[in-house]
């Protein structure tokens, strides 16, 4: 009893103390060394989850910090991170200002994908890989699909992205991965495939890949993950860059293959010219333009392509608290699409499917297309704690098939599509440990295509969609950060039929140690079948029939992960990531052969499960002189539809990616990248009934080598891609490029 009295006495005595302020506030401004305020800089207290991002004036405020001695760190892409020690006193506001030094070496400090806002990678509660600018440049990457091949856990199946086994091979009709360009979803109006070539590659700042369901924030397309491409802002000083890529595919080494295609006996050239210029036009306006010309004679017969493309991005700041950004691109392309081979004895020529009917299906599709993208966005900073962004998007596609003489056929024989929409997002940070994101989107498409036959009197297929989303982040104590999110989507599949879905998610992040964070995520995901999956009908290239009654596929995903980062100054830096994941799918949409229709059709499988683990190790030694990355992914992808589980088609169980860059004397540097993937455990055997040897696969074993020489503003890089001339397929019946040499010249006058 005495103890109770003593406790009460102490509690009463402590009351006045509790009324005293116990927390401190940290504020300041971040500028570059020229005195310009920097927006979006992350300022964090090292070893805690306290942090904030600077506003449009470069100011930041972090409130409710327990008094004590801290290290405060300011970091932003394109600048050397800066740190300062600060002793915070209860009830006081301390100011720490930073002047950041620009660097040519980009550091993957800031990401925006995971939570629709800028935050340090340490605070992202889900697996994420970042490919920075220098990694893209070193590897001579000319298109996005090339870039994604270097990211651990990502596989390409032709022009489809497969993140941790989420997608197999779906005949280009649907994608479970969403591509975002500066936060805008990039979806083609016709097939929902990812338009890999429609990006200003020399103005890309970094590529982020969110692994795991992202539907709670991004809706239907993000069931299997998100690829976010961030373009650069304009610099203070004018910058011009010219990049020339030139190379050739080596003649194939087998006489039998060469005998069937004359082109395989010679080096097959390809080349790209990129010219880009960025500048500030006045104190409120700046931007960049980017032009690309690409010609690739192709390593296969009938795989030639030519592309002419222009992009422009303008940023206008009429007042201190308003920013308008407009990104637009126009692409003309003429390409032969090689769809499937003529068997393993003749893999360089497109195949033909002899079938009882009026004509045979052929394995090549020649087209000419024009695509236009317009992406405007307005950001208004209402107060240092509140801002909103209103954005719009418009994509237009006009695609015309080519006849035997290479002349475009009328547009009525091809595809005309529009996709348009808008979004409003509001960000509110009441305190440094809390962050609210809410928003709404609306999108629609109108597509008329010879691939989607008219059955109900409406030539244009459409699928309007609306959504509302919200997410709340809450720091709990010094070490925990919890996030909860919910998204509501409604899709109109037919005039009188809407499908609605609620996608909740929950994430937790725990800072176990200064260098170690643990994260856990779970979320529901869903994907509405694309217009192509529902309506595609074709016999010219492949027997495939429509299924307008397809249901949305849904998923429940879980992930546990850790990130460990150890920094020994300039001498060494190590980063280890480990993630265990599992996703259960219901009504998974996969192509299946329908005997009664004598064609393939997208159908809902009852159940599937994909689980596995992924580990990633990055090492930097002696500053930037030695860099390496090793990633390994183990996957178990099972189709649980039948009585006995079967492997899901076109998924590799083992996936390895390794990369190495080494600085040499005399301004030279060298590097190598190795990609290994085990042979898929199951191939859709029905596909092989139509295409000879379509069931043949081998493990993927690809080694790329490079050597660079830098002199002043000129960088010359020689690359040998697929250096071991290993012949393999990334998707059935399509031989991947053999060894090819590439010379890249990058010049910034």
């Amino acid at each position, binding site marked *: 009893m005495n103890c109770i009295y003593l406790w009460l006495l102490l509690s009463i005595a402590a009351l006045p103390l509790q009324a005293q302020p116990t927390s401190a506030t940290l504020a300041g401004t971040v500028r570059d060394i020229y005195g310009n305020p920097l927006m979006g800089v992350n300022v964090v207290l090292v070893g805690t989850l306290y942090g904030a991002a600077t506003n449009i004036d470069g100011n930041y405020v972090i409130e409710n910090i327990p008094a004590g001695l801290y290290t405060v760190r300011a970091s932003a892409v394109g600048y050397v991170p800066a740190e300062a020690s600060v002793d915070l006193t209860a009830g006081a506001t301390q100011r720490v200002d930073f002047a950041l030094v620009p660097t040519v070496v980009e550091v993957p400090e800031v990401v925006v994908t995971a939570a629709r806002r800028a935050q340090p990678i340490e605070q992202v509660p889900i697996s994420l890989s970042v490919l920075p600018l220098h990694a893209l440049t070193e590897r001579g990457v000319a298109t996005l699909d090339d870039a994604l091949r270097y990211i651990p856990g990502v596989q390409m199946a032709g022009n489809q992205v497969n993140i941790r086994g989420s997608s197999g091979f779906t005949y280009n009709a649907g994608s479970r991965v969403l591509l975002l360009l500066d936060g805008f979803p990039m979806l083609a109006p016709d097939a929902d495939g990812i338009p890999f070539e429609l990006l200003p590659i020399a103005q890309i700042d970094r590529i982020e890949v969110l692994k795991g369901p992202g539907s709670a924030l991004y809706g239907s397309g993000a069931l299997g993950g998100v690829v976010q491409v961030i373009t650069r802002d304009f610099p203070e000083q004018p910058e011009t860059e010219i990049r020339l890529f030139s190379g050739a595919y080596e003649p194939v080494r*087998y006489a*039998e*293959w060469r005998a069937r295609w004359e082109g395989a006996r010679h080096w097959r050239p390809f080349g790209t010219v990129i010219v880009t210029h960025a500048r500030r036009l006045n104190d409120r306006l700046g931007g960049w333009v980017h032009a690309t010309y690409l010609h690739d004679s192709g390593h296969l017969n009938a795989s030639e392509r030519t592309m002419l493309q222009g992009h422009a991005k303008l940023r206008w700041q009429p007042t201190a608290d308003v920013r308008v950004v407009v990104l637009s691109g126009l692409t003309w392309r003429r390409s032969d699409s090689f769809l499937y081979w003529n*068997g*393993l*004895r003749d*893999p360089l020529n497109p195949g033909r*499917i*002899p*079938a*009882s*009917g009026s004509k*045979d299906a052929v394995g090549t599709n020649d087209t000419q297309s024009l695509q236009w993208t317009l992406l405007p966005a307005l950001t208004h900073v209402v107060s240092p704690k509140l801002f909103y962004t209103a954005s719009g998007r418009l994509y237009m596609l006009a695609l015309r098939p080519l006849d035997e003489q290479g002349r475009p056929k009328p547009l009525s024989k091809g595809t005309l599509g529009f996709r348009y929409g808008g979004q409003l997002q509001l960000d509110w940070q009441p305190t440094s440990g809390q962050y609210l994101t809410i928003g709404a989107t609306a999108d629609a498409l109108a597509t008329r295509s010879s691939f989607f036959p008219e059955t109900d009197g409406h030539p244009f297929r459409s699928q309007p969609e609306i959504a509302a989303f919200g997410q709340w982040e809450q720091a709990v104590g010094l070490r925990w950060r919890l996030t909860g999110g919910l998204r509501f989507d409604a899709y109109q599949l037919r005039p009188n039929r809407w499908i609605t879905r609620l996608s909740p998610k929950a994430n937790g992040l725990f800072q176990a140690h200064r260098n170690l964070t643990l994260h856990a995520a779970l979320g529901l995901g869903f994907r509405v079948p694309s217009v192509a999956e529902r309506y595609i009908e074709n016999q010219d290239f492949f*027997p495939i029939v429509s299924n307008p009654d397809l249901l949305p596929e849904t998923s429940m995903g879980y992930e546990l992960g850790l990130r460990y980062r150890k920094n020994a100054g300039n001498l060494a830096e190590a980063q280890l990531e480990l993630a265990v994941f599992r996703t259960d799918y219901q009504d998974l949409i996969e192509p299946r052969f329908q*005997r*009664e229709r*004598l064609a393939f059709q997208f159908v809902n499988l009852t159940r599937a499960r994909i689980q596995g683990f992924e580990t990633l190790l990055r090492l930097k030694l002696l500053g930037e002189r030695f860099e*390496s990355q*090793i990633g390994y992914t183990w996957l178990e992808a099972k189709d649980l539809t039948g009585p006995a589980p079967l492997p899901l088609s076109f998924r590799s169980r083992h996936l390895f990616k*390794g990369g*190495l860059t080494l600085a040499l004397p005399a301004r030279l540097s060298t590097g*190598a990248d*190795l990609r*290994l993937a085990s042979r898929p455990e199951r191939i859709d055997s029905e596909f092989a*009934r*139509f*295409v*000879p*040897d379509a069931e*043949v696969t*081998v*493990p993927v*074993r*690809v*080694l790329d080598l490079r050597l660079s020489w830098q002199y002043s503003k000129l960088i010359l890089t020689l690359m040998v891609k697929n250096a*071991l*001339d*290993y*012949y*393999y*397929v990334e998707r059935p019946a399509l*031989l991947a490029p053999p060894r090819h040499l590439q010379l890249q010249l990058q010049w910034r006058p």
Partner: protein
Amino acid sequence: MRFYVFLLFLGLLAACEGGLAPPPPSPLASLEGSVYYTGPWPPPDSVRELRFVALRFVPQNALDLLLRFNELVFSDTLRRFVDYDTFRITIDLRGVAADTFYYSGIAWKFGPGLLDWRPLVVYDRPIILRPGDRQLLVLEADFRRPASFPGTP
């Protein structure tokens, strides 16, 4: 550093195999495929036998099949009363650069007589086979709408 050299070495070793390659040379070629049956089957006594047949000529009637028997190749008997079946014919092209089949399809023996054969479904575009080739065919057969000989009205 040694670890990475070792890793690179492993990669080199792993890739030395070369990947995909043409199948070994063979004087044999194959003509294979699938036949999918739609619609109802006739009574058993009017579907006595089904075979895939490839002809080096275009037959005008059933008698041509008999008279030019050495100019055609045919598969084993196909299964009856099933949704689909597969067939395969192996052709020896030793000493021959290529062989052409102008008329292929499923032959249907509908009666007891020697000439009671007719085409059920036909692929009437030329198929050129070279040694080692593997040619696939996909046929859709419907007994309600059988094909007829070119010489038959």
